[in-house]
C-alpha cells in the first residue's frame, strides 16, 4: 500500500540526488581548464524497493558516488610516450647545438680551413722563396689549428652545460618523487576510509607525467597506491616513500647519478635525463675523439712531410704543428702551429732555397689515406654526416613521437576531458529533474492538505 509519506520521501531522495549530480557538473565546469582533470559523472542508483504484500514499490534514487572517468592503460601509454619524447627532445636539442660548429656556410669550419691551407701550399709551390706567400701558409695553418680549437672547445663547453642540465633534471626528479609519495599518502588516507580520492589521483597522474618527461619510469600499481621504478629496477617511489637520487662528480668532471649508493648513470635511457646522458657521455665524447684523431693525424702527417724537406735557410725542416699528445687525446683543442718564422717552412727538397720539391709532399697529405683508409676530407665529411644524421633522425623521431603523444592526449581528452556542451545539457537535465521532483512534493503537499481538510466544514 502506497502512502503520501512514501511519495514525499521518494521525491526528497530525488531532490538530494539531483543536487548531488549538479555538484558534479559544477566541479566539471570549474575544472574545464585544469590540466590532468578527469571529468566526474554522477552514478545514480535506485534505492532498494519496499515489498508490501503483493506490491513492490520503488523507494527513490540515491547518488552512489561521483565517478572520475579515466583510462589507466591510456595514461600509461601517455607516460611511456612522454619518456620517449623527453629523451628525443634533449638529444635533438643537444646535437643541434653541436652541429652548428660543422656548418660549412660559416666559413670558419674545419673543412673550409683545411681547403684554405692546401690552397695556400699550392700557392707556395709557384713561388717558394717569397716570404709573403710563406706567411700566408703559416696564417692558413694557424686558422686551421684555430678551427680545431674552437670546435673542440665549444663541444667541451656544450658538454659542461649538458652536465648542468643533468643536475637540474635530478633535482626536479627528486621534487616530483617527493610530491608523488605525499599524494600517495593522501590517496591512501582517503581510500582507507572509503572516500573518493579522484582529485588526488588526477594530481598524481600529472606529477607522474612530469616525471616521465625526465626519466624512464615504470609503474607498479597496488590497490590504493603506486610504486615507481626506473626501467632497470631502481626504486624512485615505493608507496608513501620517495627515494632521492644524488649526483656526484667523477674524475673526468661530469656528474654521475646515484640511487641508494649505486651508480645508475649508464642505465638511464629515456626521459630528458636519458637524452642528456646520451649527448654528454656518448655523442659529444665520440665527436671529440674523432676531432682529436683527425687533428693528430693531420699534425703528424704535415710534420713528417715538413721534416722531409729543407727550409729557406737550407736547414732540414722541423715540425710545422706542435706534436700532438701520443694518445691523441686533446689533440684538437691543443692543436697549434709550431713555428712563427715563415722561412722555416720546408718547401725545398734539396736544400736550395728556390726548390719547391717538398711542397708537393705537404700537398700530398690531401690525398693521403690518413685515418682508416680515409683522406682527411673524407674523414671530416663522414664526421659531419654523422652529426647531421643524428639531428635529422632524432628530429624525425621526435616529430613522430609528438604526433603519437598528441593523439594519445586527444584520446585521453575524449574520454576524460570536460565538454561544456555536455555539461550544459546535464545542467538542463538535472534542473528539470529537480523541478519535477519539487512539483511532486508540491502535489503531495496539496494532497495532504486535501486530506487534512477532509471533514472540516468551512
Amino acid at each position: 500500500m502506497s502512502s503520501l509519506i512514501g511519495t514525499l520521501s521518494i521525491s526528497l531522495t530525488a531532490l538530494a540526488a539531483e543536487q548531488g549530480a549538479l555538484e558534479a557538473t559544477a566541479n566539471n565546469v570549474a575544472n574545464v581548464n585544469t590540466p590532468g582533470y578527469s571529468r566526474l559523472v554522477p552514478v545514480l542508483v535506485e534505492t532498494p524497493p519496499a515489498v508490501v504484500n503483493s506490491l513492490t514499490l520503488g523507494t527513490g534514487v540515491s547518488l552512489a558516488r561521483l565517478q572520475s572517468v579515466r583510462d589507466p592503460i591510456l595514461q600509461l601509454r601517455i607516460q611511456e610516450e612522454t619518456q620517449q619524447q623527453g629523451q628525443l627532445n634533449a638529444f635533438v636539442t643537444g646535437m643541434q647545438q653541436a652541429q652548428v660548429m660543422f656548418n660549412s656556410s660559416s666559413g670558419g669550419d674545419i673543412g673550409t680551413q683545411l681547403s684554405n691551407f692546401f690552397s695556400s701550399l699550392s700557392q707556395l709551390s709557384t713561388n717558394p722563396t717569397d716570404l709573403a706567400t710563406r706567411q700566408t701558409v703559416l696564417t692558413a695553418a694557424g686558422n686551421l689549428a684555430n678551427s680545431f680549437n674552437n670546435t673542440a672547445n665549444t663541444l667541451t663547453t656544450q658538454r659542461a652545460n649538458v652536465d648542468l642540465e643533468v643536475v637540474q633534471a635530478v633535482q626536479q626528479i627528486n621534487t616530483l618523487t617527493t610530491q608523488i609519495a605525499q599524494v600517495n599518502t593522501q590517496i591512501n588516507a582517503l581510500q582507507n576510509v572509503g572516500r573518493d580520492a579522484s582529485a588526488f589521483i588526477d594530481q598524481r597522474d600529472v606529477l607522474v607525467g612530469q616525471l616521465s618527461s625526465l626519466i624512464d619510469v615504470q609503474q607498479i600499481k597496488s590497490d590504493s597506491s603506486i610504486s615507481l621504478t626506473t626501467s632497470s629496477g631502481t626504486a624512485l617511489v615505493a608507496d608513501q616513500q620517495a627515494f632521492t637520487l644524488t649526483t656526484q662528480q667523477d674524475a673526468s668532471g661530469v656528474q654521475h647519478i646515484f640511487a641508494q649508493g649505486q651508480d645508475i648513470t649508464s642505465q638511464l635511457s629515456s626521459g630528458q635525463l636519458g637524452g642528456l646522458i646520451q649527448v654528454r657521455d656518448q655523442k659529444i665524447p665520440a665527436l671529440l675523439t674523432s676531432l682529436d684523431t683527425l687533428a693528430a693525424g693531420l699534425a703528424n702527417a704535415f710534420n713528417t712531410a715538413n721534416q722531409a724537406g729543407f727550409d729557406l735557410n737550407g736547414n732540414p725542416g722541423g715540425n710545422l704543428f706542435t706534436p700532438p699528445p701520443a694518445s691523441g687525446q686533446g689533440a684538437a683543442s691543443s692543436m697549434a702551429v709550431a713555428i712563427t718564422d715563415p722561412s722555416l717552412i720546408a718547401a725545398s727538397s734539396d736544400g736550395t732555397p728556390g726548390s719547391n720539391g717538398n711542397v708537393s709532399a705537404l700537398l700530398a697529405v690531401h690525398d693521403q689515406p690518413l685515418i682508416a683508409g680515409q683522406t682527411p676530407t673524407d674523414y671530416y665529411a663522414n664526421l659531419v654526416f654523422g652529426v647531421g644524421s643524428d639531428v635529422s633522425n632524432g628530429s624525425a623521431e621526435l616529430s613522430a613521437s609528438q604526433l603519437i603523444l598528441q593523439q594519445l592526449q586527444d584520446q585521453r581528452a575524449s574520454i576524460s576531458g570536460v565538454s561544456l556542451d555536455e555539461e550544459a545539457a546535464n545542467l538542463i537535465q538535472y534542473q528539470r529533474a529537480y523541478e519535477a521532483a519539487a512539483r511532486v512534493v508540491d502535489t503531495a503537499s496539496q494532497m495532504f492538505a486535501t486530506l487534512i481538510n477532509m471533514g472540516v466544514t468551512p
Partner: protein
Amino acid sequence: MSAIRVNPYPTPDLLAALAESQQQQQTDLLQLATGRKINQPSDDPAGTAQLIQNLDQQSQADSYQRSMSSVNGELSTADSTLNSVVTVLQRAISLGTEGANGTLSDADRLSVASEVQGIQAQLLSLANTSYQGHYIFSGTAQTQPFVADSTQPSGVRYDGNTDVNSVSIGNGYSLQVNLPGSQIFSTPSPSVFQSIQDLINALQSNTNIGTAVNEVSVAYSHVNAVRVFYGNGMNQITDQQTNLNSVSVNLSSQENTIAGADLATVISNLVNSQTSRQATLQAIGQTSQLNLFNYLPPQ
C-alpha cells in the same frame, strides 16, 4: 550514449599545427634568404658530406687556376726574355758577318767588336732576368745565376744550379716550370756566352771570324729550340685552364644541385604555409566561442 565522444579540447592540436606551420615558414624564409636548401648538416646529412667534398674540389680547382696564372707569368717572362736573346744573337751574327768582310779597316772591326761586347753585356742582363723576386734561369738557387768573370773562358760564370721545379696544375698533373740557365746559356757546346766571347776575340784578333759566327749561329738555334719548352708549357696551361674551367662549372652546378634552394618550390611552400597558418589562426579564434551555454535561457 553510444555516440563516440570527441575531444572537447582542440586547442592544443591547433597550437601544435600552428607551431609546425611557423617552423616550416621559418625554414622556407631561411632558404629564401640564403638561396640554399642545406643551411645546417641535419637539413641533408648526405648532401652536406657531398658538399664538403665538392667545396674542397672547387677550392683545389681554384688553387690550380691561381698556380697556373702565376706559372704562366713566369713562363711567358722566360719566353719573351729568350725572344730578346734570339734577337740579340741575330744582331751578333750580322755584326760578325760584317766583321768577317775583309774590306773592313782594323778600327772599324774593333768598333764592331765593342758593339758585340755591348751585346755580351745585354745577354748577361737578360740571363739574369727575375720574376716576382726570383731569378728565372738560376735553377732553384736564389743567387744571381750569371756573373761576369774574366777568369772563365766564356767570360761568364754560372752560379745557379741544375735543379728544376714542378708545380701541380691538376690532380696528378704537374708541370715543370723552369730550365736551369746552364742548359740555356752555358751548355758545353754550343754555349751562348762562349760563342759571343769567341766572336769578340775573333773580331779583335781578326782570326777565324767565320768559325766564330758559325758558333753563334749554333747557339742561336739552340736558344730557339729551348724556347719550345716554354711555349709547350704555356700551351699546356691554356689547355688545362680550359679544362679546369669546365670542371669548375661542373662542380658549381653540382653544388647548386646539392645545396641550392629551388626558389619556385620554396615560394610556393611559403604561400602554402602562410595559407595554412591563417586557416589555423582563424580556427583557433572561432573554436570554443560557441557552446550550449550560449543558448541556455536567461534566468
